[in-house]
């Protein structure tokens, strides 16, 4: 498919100059965006591996936690467990910050004000399995929060990569070729005009000398 030229362009020298500047700009932008895209992809892969690792850890943590919860249910009974769960004071508070990394808004989660006692004392009147279940769920929750942070970042990154990929491709295969084609068109046009002028001059000169 021949690249179309920019519509409504006047074949003048001024236009040619401004187009050449535009081309330079587009090329610079293209290089920069390409670098950005590559950097984002590198970051993306670094995070993806963390995600995988954390997912595995979470899987293990939760398996243990559910197992212990099952035992705890058998020993203490679901009713007692539910009332215990309801009596536990909410001790977790989350702080969500948004970091800006290369134009990508990445979430960062921090736990604030986790009560110390939550992990330390054991519960009176409950089996050790209940204690274990609780401990494992607490450690699973830590992993969950970390995972949430990284997965959130990864999703954002993926979107951003897609966006800059599209931009890079648009510059490379549409914008720059189109500018080049237009430059070419104007140059041809100007040359043609020059030739016309030249012949006209010759013609007039001949007419004048014939007199």
């Amino acid at each position, binding site marked *: 498919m021949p690249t179309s030229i920019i519509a409504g362009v006047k074949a003048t020298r001024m236009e040619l100059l401004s187009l050449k500047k535009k081309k330079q700009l587009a090329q610079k932008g293209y290089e920069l965006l390409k670098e950005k895209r590559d950097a984002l992809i590198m970051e993306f892969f670094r995070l993806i591996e963390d*995600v995988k690792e954390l997912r595995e850890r979470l899987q293990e943590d939760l398996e243990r936690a559910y197992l212990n919860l099952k035992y705890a249910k058998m020993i203490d009974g679901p009713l007692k467990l539910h009332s215990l769960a309801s009596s536990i004071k909410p001790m977790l508070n989350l702080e969500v910050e948004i970091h800006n990394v290369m134009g990508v808004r990445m979430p960062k989660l921090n736990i604030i004000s*986790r009560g110390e006692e939550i992990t330390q004392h054991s519960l009176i009147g409950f089996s050790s399995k209940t204690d274990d279940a609780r401990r494992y769920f607490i450690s699973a929750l830590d992993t969950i929060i970390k995972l949430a942070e990284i997965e959130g970042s990864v999703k954002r990154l993926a979107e951003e990569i897609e966006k800059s990929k599209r931009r890079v491709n648009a510059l490379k295969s549409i914008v720059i070729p189109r500018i080049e084609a237009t430059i070419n068109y104007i140059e041809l046009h100007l040359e043609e005009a020059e030739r016309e002028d030249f012949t006209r001059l010759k013609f007039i000169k001949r007419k004048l000398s014939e007199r």
Partner: protein
Amino acid sequence: MKITVVADEDTVLGLKLAGVNETYIVNSPIEAESKIRELSTHPDIGLIIITEQMGAKIRKLIPDIIRKGIPIILEIPDKTGAVKGAEDPIRELVKKAVGVDIKIGKKQVK
């Protein structure tokens, strides 16, 4: 900000033991979706934990909330273990971002 759980009974019970403030027991995907929608408009909620089992059913219904970024929605395995191919959303992201299907972790291009 707060952490919330929208999940089945056991997951909720466990995470409640771990000290999560707000928990909602849901039994059907429709219920889960409307709960998540309701929670996502709440400015004080930073993280919604759901189960992978539920996530597989409602992921397609809530792309706008997932895109929004906050609250973050995270899927965790429930007591039946991880869903096979639970990495799929991530893998899809990789495919979308890089253009090739890449096996995560082992740095092998398929």
